[in-house]
């Protein structure tokens, strides 16, 4: 059966793509963010995943409000990035893993997570930037991928308790796949930030650090909160941290921290990085 080697949660911000394109990794503004990644790359080199299941949210590249799925999964041989309208470079295509996608679809629907299935799916910066951070400059990306998109745009959003259970179902789906593949689960987004309204620029460092700690020791802690609670505590876009929670759920049992980094600000966002492996 396939093996989950661990999980990595990380912030996605479009401007990270521009910083990479302009080689600003050691610029004083960006250094505290980019310096978080070498230990994660070393861990990846050690655990050697073949496949990445990437849990993220689309920002209006593949999905619009005409059809807005709560949970969607890619089932394509290849995923293309495309122009998102804000001038960040478009990255080359990513290889899919169609057999795992369909196995996951069967397993998730059997577990009553009724997925929207996508045989064509554009992937935006929330998918591409984390892969670019973990495997910098490697085109094509050395892992095959399965994208899973969670609605964080139009409310109602799936509540934290539901996301955690969704993640557990993802974990069981991967581990029941008849393959010797090694799989890393990636969750992207957050941490606290708010782009819109008079409260723009809102950041909650105390909550973010607690969330990162609890994700290791007691992930059910965050399921006490409603989505509205999370908006209040972390901002309108901070709520993207449900993708981190989903990825943590997929790791099933106990986990240990491999590496963590937290830095404020990247653009208007509190940036976080958390690499975990099963114990």
């Amino acid at each position: 059966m396939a093996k989950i080697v661990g999980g990595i949660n990380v912030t996605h911000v479009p401007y990270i793509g521009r910083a990479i394109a302009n080689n600003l990794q050691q610029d004083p503004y960006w250094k505290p963010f980019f310096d978080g990644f070498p230990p994660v790359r070393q861990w990846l080199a050690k655990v050697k995943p073949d496949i990445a299941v990437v849990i993220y949210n689309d920002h209006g590249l593949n999905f619009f409000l005409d059809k807005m799925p709560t949970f969607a999964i890619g089932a394509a041989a290849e995923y293309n990035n495309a122009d998102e309208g804000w001038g960040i470079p478009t990255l080359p295509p990513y290889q899919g893993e169609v057999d795992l996608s369909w196995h996951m679809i069967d397993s998730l629907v059997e577990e009553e997570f009724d997925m929207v299935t996508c045989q064509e799916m554009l992937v935006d910066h929330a998918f591409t930037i984390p892969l670019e951070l973990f495997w910098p400059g490697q085109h094509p990306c050395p892992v095959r991928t399965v994208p899973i998109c969670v609605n964080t745009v139009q409310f109602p959003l799936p509540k934290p308790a539901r996301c955690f259970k969704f993640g557990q179902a993802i974990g069981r789906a991967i581990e029941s796949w008849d393959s010797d593949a090694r799989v890393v689960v990636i969750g992207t987004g957050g941490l606290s930030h708010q782009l819109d309204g008079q409260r723009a620029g809102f950041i909650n460092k105390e909550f973010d650090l607690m969330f990162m700690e609890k994700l290791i020791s007691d992930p059910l802690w965050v399921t006490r909160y409603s989505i509205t609670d999370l908006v209040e505590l972390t901002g309108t876009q901070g709520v993207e941290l449900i993708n981190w929670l989903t990825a943590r759920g997929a790791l099933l049992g106990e986990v240990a921290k491999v590496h963590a980094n937290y830095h404020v600000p990247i653009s208007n966002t509190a940036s976080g990085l958390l690499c975990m492996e099963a114990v």
Partner: protein
Amino acid sequence: MNTGRQKRAIPGTTIFDGDVARKGYALNKMCFSFNSAENRAAYLEDKEAYCDKYGLNEQQKKAALSLQVLDMLAAGGNAYYLAKLGGIFGLDMQDVGAQQTGMTKEAFKAKLVEAGK
């Protein structure tokens, strides 16, 4: 469960729920079209005609043409889509944040740095 449900107010914050999504559909759809370079150029060519093509109401059109983010939010805009309109004019998230909070860009950036301490 009905549209008369109680909503919890968070100061300075709009929850982009069904009511807002219905109100803002035309504006957001126009912004979504700006994924295409051709459409971005067409907007710059004739902004008003482009707004009309997407069926924006007067409130949405005025807000979009003035690039006032709080007005666009009040007209049902969503931050993720509005960012594509802002991108046409080279506005970054600190420009947008400063505008909405009535601060200078430098003060807004300083506020973000302060939040990390």
